[in-house]
């Protein structure tokens, strides 16, 4: 009986610090100051759909999608290798995948400057090998690289955990029945890892589409994403109304992509 009551402080906390702030965002997005009062308006929301802002939104989506695709292409083989029986000490390798995340992510991203600069480490190595220099710093490519670098573990881990749970006798059965390794992978292994792939896609796409730090550090000034635009509205131009409208739009976008992806995964539900 009394047990129910003791979750009261938690509910109150969430109400004040999670629900109420979101209501404030909705409130600022849908109202504007007029003669000392806040009145209802759709002006902020309609501004979101102006071409200059749509271009930024499209660009954020594009970069996030490309990064997610790269994370999948690079990460899936890693997860596959980690679960293969060639490696006996795979738990240590999994720890090695996670370990970089304990170094502050801003500093890690910043360290890429040292590597990518015109006179940076990578170009020194390329020159030594008599290869042409690479100048991707402050371009889209650098932003994508930063996203893939930061979020790759988020793709590897969920795929690894689904692959790890696959019943090995199924794979042996496929082999006994004469399936080539490729067919075994295509028909037996991959379909069973789809849930992990989906979690990975969500866990990479969401932070990639909302980031403002990676684009600020590696993309230079002119490469703005939706995250940078929102940050500017709140901390530089103090246009809370438009900033809130952009945030509302971003949340709706993520909610829709999230639920579409979850639907495709079937009824089992649950993000993890």
């Amino acid at each position: 009986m009394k047990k129910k009551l003791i979750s009261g402080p938690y509910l109150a906390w969430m109400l004040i610090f999670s629900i109420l702030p979101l209501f404030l965002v909705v409130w600022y997005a849908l109202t504007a100051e007029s003669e000392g009062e806040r009145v209802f308006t759709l002006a902020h929301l309609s501004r979101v759909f102006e071409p200059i802002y749509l271009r930024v939104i499209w660009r954020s989506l594009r970069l996030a999608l490309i990064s997610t695709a790269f994370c999948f292409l690079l990460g899936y083989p890693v997860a596959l290798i980690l679960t293969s029986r060639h490696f006996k000490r795979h738990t240590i390798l999994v720890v090695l995948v996670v370990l970089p995340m304990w170094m502050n992510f801003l500093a890690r991203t910043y360290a890429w400057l040292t590597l990518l600069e015109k006179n940076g480490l990578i170009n020194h190595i390329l020159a030594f090998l008599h290869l042409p220099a690479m100048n991707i710093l402050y371009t889209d490519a650098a932003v994508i690289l930063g996203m893939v670098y930061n979020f790759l573990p988020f793709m590897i881990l969920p795929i690894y955990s689904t692959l790890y749970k696959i019943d090995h006798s199924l794979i042996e059965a496929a082999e006994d029945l004469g399936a080539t390794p490729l067919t075994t992978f295509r028909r037996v292994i991959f379909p069973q890892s789809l849930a992990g792939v989906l979690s990975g896609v969500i866990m990479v796409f969401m932070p990639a589409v909302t980031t403002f730090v990676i684009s600020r550090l590696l993309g230079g000034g002119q490469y703005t994403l939706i995250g940078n635009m929102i940050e500017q509205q709140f901390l530089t131009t103090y246009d809370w109304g438009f900033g809130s409208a952009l945030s509302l739009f971003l949340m709706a976008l993520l909610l829709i992509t999230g639920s579409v992806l979850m639907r495709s995964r079937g009824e089992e539900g649950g993000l993890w």
Partner: protein
Amino acid sequence: MVRSWGSRVYLALIFLFLYAPIAVLMVFSFNSARSRGVWGGFTLDWYAQLFQDRQIMSALYYTLLCALLAAVLATALGTVAAIGLSGMRGLPRLLASNLAYLPMINPDIVMGLSLMLLFISLKIPLGFVSMLLAHITFCLPFVIFSVLPKLKQTQTELYDAALDLGATPLYAYAKVIIPQIRPGIVTGFLLAFTMSIDDFVVSFFATGNGVTNVAITIYSMARRGMNPKINALLTIMFAGVILLLFIANRRLASDTKSKQSTLFTK
């Protein structure tokens, strides 16, 4: 054999990709030239100067204090919440536990700015207190989702037996339930602590008045060129984490020998 070699090389390349920036960061903490990208010889000067740098030391102080307080308070609040949630049934339970997902799925930028709006509306000055409140909020779900599964596994018969033997509910909880869910509480605390130490985005919006943490200091320095003292600080912190992991691993190994350890199993 060939496949095995191929996968070894591939894995090595991926680890090179993941660790190259970290290696660069650490190497340049021993670099006597100040600018990045130029190697001027080995030095330990930055490590010595680090502890005299008042800006960095104050950022470190706020980071650690905030992480410790946020982890302790979130663990206390979250554990009590999990116990409460486990006693609820039906729709209220579903709603209340799904509420905990909110800070996890809400993009951190939206969480940061919406909390900033809240603090300004409630006239809570942006500074250490507002940062702490924000950190407790995003740490809470991690504690709840670490403790809840452990509560599901507890044997309620023991708790009922304690009550039959005349223990008060509170006493029975402290003596019977809490020891059984302790691994979940410890995991939740550690998760909360690391999440807090590493946070940039939420803190960036939720603080002000000269109160900064290490991440914000790095962000403001990054545009002017980062100070090698920060590299030194991060190298020490990273070494600390590896040491902690090593100790935890050793303890876990000796734990599993004597009794079944439940820290990392579901």
